[in-house]
C-alpha cells in the first residue's frame, strides 16, 4: 500500500483507497473510526500508512467516541476525519448533531458509508437525512476518482463554513475500483492548540440558542456555495431531464441516451436555483437516486416553490424502487419513460436447481463450537438467543440456529434483560469481544443493576473479525508507534458487578458445556467468556497451527452427526461416507469431539 504515499502518478484504486489518498492529500492530521463495512478498508490502510503520512489514526471504541475524538481535533485547529458505516452514524449522531451547532475551526469530514441492499448490514438506511437533520453540508461521490476529489472539496467547504461536512458514500463507491490521478501530498499539521471559547463550545441552553441562530445563518451560506459548486453540473441538452446522484449517475451516463442530466454531488443543501433552471422547459424529469426519495422530494419542493410545472417521475410515482441498490438493469427498465441503450438479451436461466450458498461460519471457527455447546447445555427446552452484530450472527443458519433477535451493536445484552423480565424462558445472549467493548458494557451494568437473569456469552476471538480483523481494546494496540496492553474481560465483567464469570476455550466442547450449565443455573446475570483466537486472523499473522483430521471409515456408522449438527464447511456427505476437505480443515477437532463413535481422529 506504499503506492498511496506517492507524490503523483495514476493508480487503479478501490473507492476506499481513493478516499484514504484524499485524506493524505488534504493534510488530515487525525482520523478515527470504528470498523464497519463498507468503510473498513480505510482503517486498515491508515493503520499502516498514518504514521508515515504524519497523521494520527485510531480505532476508537465506538463511532460516537470517534466523532468526539475527531471533533476535539477540529476545534483545536487540526483537520480531522471520522468514518463509519451507516448504522455507525446512528451511534455517533449524538455527538455529531451538537458539533453541527458549535461548528469546528479546522476542517472536519465525517464519512457515512451506506450499504443499500444490506450486503453486510442489518438494515438499509439512507443517511442523507442526517445532513438534513443536522444542517450539515453533504457531498455524494459517484466514482472512486470523484470520492478523492470530494474529500479535498469537503475540507475546503468545512473550513469556509466552519462546520463538519458529511461525505456520504455507498457500497458501490467504497468497493468500486477505478483509475485515480494522484495530486501533491503535503505534510499534515497533526498538532494544534485549543483556544477557549465557552460561548461556542459549552452548549448550555443560553449558548445553544445563539448557536442555533448561527447554524441557520450558516446554512444560507452553504446554499450559496452549493449553487456555485462545480460538483452540481448539467450534461447534454434535451427536454427529457434526469437528476442523478451517487453511483446511479454512472448507470445513467452509460445506459441512457438523448437526455439532459443534472448531476448532483453537493446534495445538502441542494442548489435550488440550479434545479429550478434545470426543470424549466422540461417535458419530463426522472430522479435517479438510491434509497429514499431524498432528492426527488427536493425537486418537487423546488418546482412548487419556484412555480415550475413539470412532470417528475421517481419513487413517489412508482417508476423506481425505494428498496435496494440500483443497477444498470433498473435504468434499462425505464424504457417507457426515457430513451435507453439496450444491450444484447441475457440467456435464460436453465432450470437446474442449485443449492443456496449463504455466508457461513468458517471451518474451525470457535463460535461454531460455542454455539454447539450452548445448545447442548440449554437442552431440549430451548432458550431465547439474543444475539449481536458480527461474524457470529451467522449462527442464525441451521443447524446451529443460535440467533433469535439482532438489532444493533450491543443489543444482545440489553434485549436479554427485557426477555428475562417478561418471559419465563431461558435467555442466552451472545456478543463478540469488540462489540462488547463498543456498546455491551452499559447493558451488562443495566442487567446487574436491575437484577435481570440471563447468561451473556462473550465470544472472544481476540479480534474484530467480520470487518477484516481490526484490533480492539481486548487485544491491545500495536500500530502507529503506540503500544497498549490488552484490557482483560474477566476483571472488567466483575467490575460491572457480575458475580458469576467463567472463561473457557470453546475448542474444549465438554468444558464449554459444563461452564454453560453452571451459568444457566446461576440466579442472576452470569457471564461466560468463550475465548479462542479467530483462525483466519491467526492465518493472516502466519501463526495458525494446523492439524489434520481424518475419518476412520470402519468406526463411522454414517450417523452424520458431525455434518448435520456441527455443520463445518470442511465436512461433507459423500454417499454413505463423510469426507473432510483437507484444504479447508484447520484441525480444530470440534467434529472429533461431537462424533458419538469417536471415528474422527487426528492424523499424526
Amino acid at each position: 500500500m506504499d503506492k498511496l504515499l506517492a507524490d503523483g502518478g495514476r493508480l487503479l484504486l478501490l473507492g476506499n483507497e481513493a478516499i484514504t489518498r484524499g485524506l493524505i492529500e488534504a493534510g488530515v492530521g487525525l482520523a478515527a473510526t470504528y470498523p464497519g463495512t463498507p468503510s473498513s478498508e480505510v482503517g486498515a490502510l491508515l493503520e499502516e500508512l498514518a504514521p508515515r503520512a504524519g497523521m494520527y489514526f485510531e480505532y476508537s471504541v465506538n463511532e460516537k467516541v470517534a466523532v468526539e475524538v475527531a471533533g476535539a481535533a477540529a476545534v483545536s485547529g487540526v483537520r480531522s476525519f471520522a468514518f463509519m458505516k451507516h448504522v455507525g452514524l446512528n451511534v455517533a449522531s449524538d455527538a455529531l448533531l451538537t458539533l453541527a451547532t458549535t461548528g469546528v475551526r479546522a476542517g472536519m469530514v465525517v464519512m457515512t458509508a451506506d450499504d443499500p441492499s444490506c450486503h453486510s448490514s442489518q438494515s438499509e438506511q439512507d443517511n442523507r437525512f442526517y445532513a438534513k437533520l443536522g444542517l450539515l453540508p453533504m457531498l455524494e461521490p459517484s466514482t472512486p476518482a470523484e470520492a478523492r476529489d470530494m474529500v479535498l472539496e469537503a475540507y475546503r467547504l468545512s473550513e469556509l463554513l466552519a462546520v463538519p461536512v458529511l461525505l456520504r458514500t455507498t457500497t458501490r463507491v467504497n468497493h468500486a475500483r477505478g483509475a485515480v490521478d494522484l495530486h501533491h501530498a503535503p505534510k499534515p499539521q497533526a498538532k494544534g492548540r485549543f483556544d477557549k471559547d465557552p460561548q461556542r463550545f459549552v452548549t448550555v441552553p443560553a449558548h445553544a440558542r445563539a448557536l442555533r441562530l448561527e447554524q441557520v445563518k450558516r446554512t444560507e451560506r452553504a446554499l450559496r456555495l452549493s449553487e456555485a459548486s462545480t460538483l452540481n453540473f448539467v450534461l447534454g441538452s434535451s427536454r427529457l431531464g434526469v437528476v442523478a446522484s451517487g453511483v446511479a449517475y454512472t448507470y445513467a451516463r452509460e445506459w441512457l441516451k438523448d437526455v439532459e442530466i443534472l448531476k448532483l454531488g453537493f446534495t445538502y443543501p441542494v442548489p435550488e436555483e440550479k434545479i429550478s433552471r434545470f426543470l424549466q422547459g422540461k417535458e419530463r424529469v426522472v430522479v435517479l437516486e438510491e434509497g429514499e426519495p431524498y432528492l426527488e422530494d427536493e425537486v418537487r419542493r423546488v418546482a412548487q416553490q419556484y412555480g415550475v410545472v413539470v412532470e417528475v417521475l421517481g419513487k413517489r410515482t412508482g417508476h423506481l424502487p425505494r428498496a435496494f441498490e440500483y443497477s444498470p438493469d433498473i435504468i434499462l427498465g425505464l424504457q417507457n419513460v426515457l430513451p435507453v441503450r439496450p444491450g444484447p438479451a441475457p440467456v435464460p436461466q436453465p432450470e437446474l436447481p442449485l443449492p443456496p450458498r449463504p455466508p457461513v461460519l468458517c471451518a474451525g471457527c470457535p463460535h461454531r463450537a460455542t454455539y454447539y455447546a450452548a445448545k447442548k447445555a440449554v437442552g431440549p427446552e430451548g432458550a431465547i438467543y439474543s444475539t449481536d452484530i458480527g461474524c457470529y450472527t451467522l449462527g442464525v443458519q441451521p443447524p446451529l440456529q443460535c440467533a433469535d433477535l439482532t438489532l444493533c451493536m450491543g443489543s444482545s445484552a440489553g434485549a436479554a434483560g427485557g426477555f428475562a423480565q417478561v418471559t419465563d424462558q431461558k435467555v442466552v445472549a451472545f456478543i463478540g469481544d469488540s462489540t462488547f467493548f463498543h456498546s455491551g458494557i452499559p447493558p451488562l451494568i443495566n442487567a446487574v443493576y436491575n437484577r435481570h437473569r440471563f447468561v451473556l456469552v462473550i465470544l472472544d476471538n481476540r479480534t474484530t473479525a467480520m470487518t477484516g480483523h481490526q484490533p480492539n481494546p481486548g487485544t491491545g494496540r500495536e500500530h502507529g508507534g503506540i503500544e497498549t496492553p490488552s484490557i482483560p474481560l474477566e476483571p472488567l465483567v466483575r467490575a460491572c458487578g457480575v458475580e458469576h464469570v467463567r472463561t473457557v476455550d470453546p475448542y474444549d466442547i465438554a468444558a464449554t458445556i459444563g461452564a454453560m450449565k453452571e451459568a444457566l443455573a446461576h440466579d442472576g446475570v452470569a457471564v461466560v467468556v468463550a475465548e479462542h483466537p479467530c483462525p483466519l486472523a491467526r492465518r493472516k499473522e502466519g501463526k495458525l497451527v494446523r492439524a489434520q483430521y481424518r475419518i476412520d471409515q470402519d468406526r463411522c456408522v454414517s450417523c452424520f452427526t458431525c455434518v448435520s449438527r456441527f455443520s463445518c464447511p470442511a465436512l461433507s456427505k459423500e454417499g454413505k461416507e463423510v469426507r473432510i476437505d483437507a484444504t479447508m480443515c484447520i484441525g480444530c477437532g470440534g467434529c472429533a469431539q461431537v462424533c458419538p463413535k469417536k471415528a474422527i481422529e487426528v492424523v499424526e
Partner: protein
Amino acid sequence: MKYSVQLVGVGGQGVLLASTVLGTAAVAEGLEVAMSEVHGMAQRGGSVQCSVRIGQDILSPLIPKGGADLLLGFEPAETLRSVAMVNRDSTIVTNVSPIVPVSVAVGQGTYPSVDDILAALRSVNEHVIAVDATALAIEAGRAITANAVLIGAIAAVKGFPLPKDRMLEALLQAVPQKAVDINTRAFELGYAQVVTERGQG
C-alpha cells in the same frame, strides 16, 4: 470498445485477486476501468461476484444482465447461478471443481453433478470452456494457484482485449516473489488449455 467481465465464485477462492489483476492489466494498457467488488460478510464462504469493465467511456462499475462479454466462474454451481449475466455470443470460462455448500449437508438443497451443470450452461450458450483449474494448478505445483490457471485461461479467450503478457505481468505483481515461477507455470497451463480448445472448436 467496451468489454465486461463478470467473475463469480465462493468467498476465499481468490475472485477478488483475479479481478484486481484484470483491472491492473487494463490500466497498464492505457484503458479506462470500472470495477465492483464484494467485501465483508459475503466473503465468509458465500457466493461472491465481481465485475470488471474496461475500454473507453467506462463509468459504471456494474454490468447489466446479458452484458458480460465473458463470465469467469471459479466454481461450477456459481457459474450457473450467474449465467444470466451473459448473452448467446458471450464466452463462459468455468472451473469444474465443485465446492459443496453447507446448505446441502443440512438438507436445504442438492448439489447437481458437474456434467449436468456443464450441460445446463451449454444449453443456453455455445461458448463454454470448462477448465479443470485445480488439476492444472496441482500440475503447476500447488492447488492454490488455481486462480492463476483461470487468469491464464481468459487471456486466451477469443476477443479478450488485453495481451497475454500484460495479464501475466499484472498477475506476477500480485503474488509473492517466491511464488512467481509456480504462478507463471499455472498461468501458462490455463492459457494453453484454452488455446487447445479453440483449435478444436
